[in-house]
């Protein structure tokens, strides 16, 4: 099972000091977070993609390429890549390039984006969000698998005799996850292709996650990729840890209370009760994370959100240290126990390459 960090990349004032990091600070902090993840033995770093303030990561492959050069094992990923407003041709090229530079340590997650004006800024219409996700990905899927593509669709200029370069490393397209909070069409899309499905599993009650994952698993089997239990599922998680649970609550509350997205709403206690958020000790994080399996089944990838709402970099790095030293080793052991032998690991470049060699021999 893979463990990692996903970052939204928000520039938010630290409510306890009033200090706002510069864009440069935040971009460098994201790199430091990724490198810390590798240092403590985590497997994945995924960045968001945004095209409006207060977010910095508009150019994910630039950032991931830089991290790839400085890390050795870490898988670089996204959460998410906007399949709606990016040109699928450019996604094909950018991520194939990244794949070569990173020696295959790359996958990516498709998402639609929920910021209304981003669509018109990129010449699209948010009401076509699902259709854009479907058509653009259908093209991307072909660009990585067919050397020469002739194509015509609804949303983009037709292509005649187009070859996307560089070709995927070793002829193996990057593995793709599809992320959605509550659109069944996206779970269906992931299932159809036999791709991974990721539920962010934060800020919402777990029953959203459960419903979407169940649908994906059922449809994955329907399309003949394997049993429902063999479908490739990733989940998010939202944590803040200290050795002592009261210290965690005391330190995190000022950030929680005014956080973007969920701040100025219910109390930290109510939110912890109603969503997958854990604020407490490493043991409490272990307990709650292991319980994800009860509604999502055995899954392949767990990403944690640790760096939002203005938390200082030092605090975030401490969180990742605790994940690496105390939480993830236990989660690896406990998740492995009782996991059925025919539940696969998350696909990697190496495993996909090996599978391709078997089928072509």
């Amino acid at each position, binding site marked *: 099972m893979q463990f990692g960090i996903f970052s939204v990349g928000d520039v938010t004032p630290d409510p306890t000091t009033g200090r706002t990091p510069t864009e440069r600070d935040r971009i460098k902090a994201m790199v430091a977070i990724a490198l810390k993840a590798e240092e403590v033995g985590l497997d994945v770093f995924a960045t968001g993609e945004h095209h409006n303030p207060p977010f910095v990561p508009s150019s994910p492959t630039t950032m991931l390429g830089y991290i790839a050069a400085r890390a050795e094992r870490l898988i670089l990923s996204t959460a998410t890549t906007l399949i709606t407003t990016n040109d699928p041709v450019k996604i094909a090229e950018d991520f194939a390039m990244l794949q070569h530079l990173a020696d295959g340590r790359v996958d990516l997650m498709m998402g639609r984006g929920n910021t209304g004006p981003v669509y018109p800024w990129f010449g699209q219409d948010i009401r076509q969000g*699902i*259709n854009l996700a*479907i*058509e653009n990905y*259908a093209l991307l899927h072909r660009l990585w698998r067919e050397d020469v593509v002739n194509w*015509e*669709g*609804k949303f983009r200029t037709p292509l005649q005799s187009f070859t996307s370069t560089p070709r995927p490393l070793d002829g193996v397209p990057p593995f793709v996850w599809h992320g959605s909070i509550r659109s*069944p*069409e996206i779970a*269906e*899309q992931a*299932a*159809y292709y036999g791709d991974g499905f990721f539920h962010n599993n934060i*800020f*919402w*009650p777990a029953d*959203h996650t459960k*419903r979407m994952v169940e*649908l994906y698993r059922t*449809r994955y089997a329907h399309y003949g990729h394997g049993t429902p239990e063999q479908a490739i599922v990733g989940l998010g998680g939202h944590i803040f840890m200290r050795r002592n649970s009261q210290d965690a609550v005391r330190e995190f509350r000022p950030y929680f209370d005014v956080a973007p997205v*969920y*701040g*100025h*709403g*219910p109390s930290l206690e*109510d*939110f912890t009760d*109603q969503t997958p958020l854990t604020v407490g000790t490493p043991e409490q994080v272990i307990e709650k994370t292991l319980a994800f399996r009860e509604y999502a089944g055995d899954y392949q990838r767990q990403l944690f959100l640790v760096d939002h709402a203005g938390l200082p970099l030092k605090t975030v790095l401490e969180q990742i240290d605790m994940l690496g030293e105390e939480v993830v080793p236990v989660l690896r052991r406990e998740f492995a126990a009782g996991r059925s032998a025919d539940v696969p690991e998350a696909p990697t470049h190496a495993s996909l390459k090996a599978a391709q060699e078997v089928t072509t021999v």
Partner: protein
Amino acid sequence: MKLVVVSAGLSVPSSTRLLGDRLAAAVGGQSDVDVEVVELRDLAVEIAHHFTNGFPGRKLAAAIDAVTSADGLVVVTPGSCRRRANGCSSASYSGLFKSFFDVIEPEALAGMPVLIAATGGTARHSLVLEHALRPLFAYLRAVVVPTGVYAASEDWGAEGLDGRIERAAGELAGLMAGRPAKKGAEPEVVPFEEQLAALRPAG
């Protein structure tokens, strides 16, 4: 059949709730219904949190389930009056009333028989039913009975209110009895090939 009363009255006791109860009893007199009352006052904080978080707390989720799974609704809001302490609203339904219907999925009340009712300081505001409530439920594609019931303070001591209550209740009971059976809660998945085919250029 299940009848749910949604009352946005804020004072305790509330004339808005009183009107809701009268209407529910009148519907019960004309058909066999189980009545459940949703008091929005008890849900005010969870409704506000739904706006900040995008998901309902447990009590609110139960209320939304009750309303969307009902066979018919009686909805009652305070209308206009000049006494803020009584939970009066300004020239429309109350903000709390509207907020509750703002957090319900827009398709969830399609075809739902609804009896609209309001209370207020004077009969001068009685058209709130026609210019505010009826368009709201039309937007939600609910089926609103022809008779809306408005009770000004003076109506509680005058003739005529009970006749309007009976007429509106009869209309609601009739609609509820004639409503087709509810669809199952099975989530609908459009098979992927169909989604893809819909995007293919013609010819």
